[in-house]
């Protein structure tokens, strides 16, 4: 498809990258970029890090483009409906736009605090977009007595780190056994928990928040361990929900867990059949990564958004008999508490973990993750520059534990059981 009209629904990283890819691959028709937020596309990872700790303003996050996209930007207008038969997208302002091609890149939103009255208290925050970050930053600047972070996933842990950098006392309540364990595994999560505590974070695992209290402003929080905390700010970091509501009834296979596509990014209908000229990319896309024998899942990673968008743009323009597929291994990073955490593959699938370089107690380390005797992932802490080697091991399905024998490799100890 080189002419006609392509709508990219979603104007964040995946949407922008898809628009770039469409133009780079020779699409000369009308390109419409629809975004729910009023802002030009911007980069989200700094929101919980440098933005919160005050190093970077939210006006400094715009994503760069390498070319003039010549795109009509409809910003501040969410897509609210899709009619596949008529090939039309409905917008929040009532407009209806026809399309020849569509890229669904509407991303995800923060999972809200379940009790609406408590969520409405001043001082209770979500963190997903730049307006959230500005509001939270303003509250943190007032010097709250204590910040409660609800949920110790990546966002929660990074928020805790940024608040710690600001000199604020922080409590993290985390339902699981260790922070970020759902992505990194319990063992590595436990190592990071120890390092967070060493920074003075009041980290409570196996603990949930049972109530947020106050008149109009947050004053107290009750925890499942029976404790009651005086807090002025709570950051609800309970994960995200894919923005699929607008696809309801469209015929696409989409539900609260994501919108289904194949590794080429092609949207699937409820029968699993490919829907022509409709592609899905980024946080909203649920798919089965071709390398792993695992259930379809969403990959809410920066690199995945870009890779899927590039593939979608290529396939949509060229419609090749053998479409390109996203084959890059899942990878993500986090910066917190002076730790650079990088992951390759799918460590959370592991049934065995081995420390392959460095030491869990101090300094940098790399842990390899295995499942059924095959290397499926690795996590590097303050050792980002060796991960390509581990990616090669995952790609070639190397036996686990892999032989590294590096100068900083310890004697091998394999930790059995779910990671």
């Amino acid at each position, binding site marked *: 498809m080189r002419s006609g009209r392509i709508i990219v629904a979603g104007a964040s990283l995946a949407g922008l990258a898809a628009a770039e890819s469409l133009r780079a691959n020779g699409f000369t028709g009308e390109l419409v970029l629809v975004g729910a937020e009023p802002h030009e596309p911007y980069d989200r990872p700094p929101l919980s890090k440098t933005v919160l700790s005050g190093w970077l303003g939210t006006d400094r996050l715009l994503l760069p483009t390498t070319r003039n996209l010549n795109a009509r930007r409809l910003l501040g207008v969410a897509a609210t409906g899709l009619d596949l038969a008529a090939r039309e997208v409905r917008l929040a302002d009532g407009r209806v736009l026809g399309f020849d091609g569509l890229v669904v890149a509407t991303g995800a939103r923060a999972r809200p605090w379940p009790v609406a009255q408590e969520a409405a208290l001043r001082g209770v925050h979500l963190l997903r977009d730049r307006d959230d970050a500005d509001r939270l930053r303003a509250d943190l600047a007032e010097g709250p007595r204590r910040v409660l972070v609800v949920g110790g996933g990546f966002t929660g842990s990074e928020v805790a780190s940024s608040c710690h950098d600001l000199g604020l006392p922080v409590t993290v309540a985390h339902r699981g056994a260790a922070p970020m364990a759902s992505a990194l595994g319990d063992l590595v999560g436990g190592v990071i928990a120890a390092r967070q505590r060493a920074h003075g974070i009041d980290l409570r695992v196996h603990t949930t928040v049972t109530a947020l209290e106050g008149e109009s402003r947050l004053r107290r929080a009750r925890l499942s361990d029976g404790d009651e905390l005086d807090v002025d700010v709570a950051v609800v970091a309970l994960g995200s929900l894919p923005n699929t509501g607008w696809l309801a009834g469209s015929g696409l296979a989409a539900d609260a867990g994501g919108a289904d596509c194949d590794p080429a990014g092609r949207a699937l209908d409820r029968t699993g059949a490919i829907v022509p000229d409709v592609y899905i990319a980024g946080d909203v896309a649920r798919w089965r990564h071709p390398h792993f024998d695992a259930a379809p899942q969403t990959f809410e990673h920066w690199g995945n958004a870009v890779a899927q968008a590039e593939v979608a743009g290529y396939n949509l323009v060229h419609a090749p008999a053998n479409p390109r597929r996203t084959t890059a291994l899942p990878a993500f990073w986090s910066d917190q508490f002076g730790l650079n955490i990088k992951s390759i593959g799918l460590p959370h699938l592991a049934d065995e973990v081995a420390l392959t*370089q*460095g030491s869990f107690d101090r300094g940098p380390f790399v842990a390899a993750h295995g499942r059924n005797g095959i290397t499926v992932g690795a996590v590097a802490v303050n050792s980002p*520059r060796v991960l390509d080697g581990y990616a090669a091991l995952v790609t070639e399905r190397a036996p686990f534990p892999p032989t590294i024998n590096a100068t900083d490799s310890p004697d091998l100890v394999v930790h059995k059981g779910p990671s």
Partner: protein
Amino acid sequence: MTYPAAVPYRRLLDHANRHNPYPYFAELAGKPIQRLDEHTWIVTGHAEISVLLRDPRLSAQDEVDPRASTGSDGKPVRGPFLMQDPPHHDTLREQTMHQFVPRILGMRPHIETTVARLLDRYVGPGEMDVVEALAYPLPVAVICELLGVPAEEEPVFHSFAARLTRALDPVETLTEQEVADLVETRAEWRKYLLPMISRRQTGPGTDLISGLLTEGGMNTVELTITLGLLLIAGHETTVNLIANGTLALLRNPEVLDRLRADPDLVPSVVEEVLRHDPPVQQTNRRTTADVRVADRIVPAGDKVVLLLPAGNRDPRRFADPDQFWPERPNNTHLAFGGGVHYCLGAALARMEGQAALGALAARLANPRLIADPPPYRPNMLLRGPAELRIAFDDVTKPDTRLPQVAG
């Protein structure tokens, strides 16, 4: 048994081919990896080199000499951190970075002034050897400034740099005399540095040596070795970058015209020089485990030669790889290596290269090569012209209304 790759590789090492090794790189590039001898492999594929540079199963260090002096980790010193593995590599590199990076951040104006001063010596029609006139003195001045060494010491540094650089070449290209000279040069280098170090021990200044002494944890042996590394790696490489870049611009006058018309092109020009004709020609590793590379398994303990220029001209990665084309998109060359040993001075090299090539393009009127190819220094690993004689109609004064170098 002889392996087919050994023949073109020998030609690469041969000084007679130093001016143009690229046909042999191309010949070797038919396969991404092949055997050179029973325990040595060469890798020419961009993707393969790129991954191997970031693979912990490739060690950069040699067997330790038990007679060597003791380092700050209580173990025998293995040489500069470029040739060490983590964890001690990381400690030494971090200490060096901590002193190096803040000191180079503000250096661009100083570098541009130095370039201008060096070119101001020429007026009217004439000739210059770009190596002697600019490529050598610029990085020496910069490194002396960094180390807090007075300008009159620059010739001494120049001489040490040239002599120590031979140490990096494959040992089979060195004569016995050269090996003996190297041992002596290293001893002289330590002798030269020790008084400089002890002066700073009693009265530290604001320079990098003082910083490493007072804030780092290096002992004196590690310090002299690290300073030798900074001298060679930060100096000889930049000489070649500037000389190779000048050569490329004069061989491609349409690029030179585009650079003159658009000074903002200079960062891309420097990146393309780094891809097309990189100063560092190879880096070697040893496998610590069996490693699969493309369709081969390199057994543990074998030597792996990563031919960076071959990767930079891998046709699977770069379209028209022999073409010098600064506007090339996504120029992910391998000139600075990658992984834990990624060039510590990359930012400084870029600044120096951009300042030098930007000024040459802006100021030389009608420059042309007097000898093409120019004569090359014997060094294989850090490859570059011994001299680069050019003629010109004039060296114009810099345009002071506009910044010379952008980016």
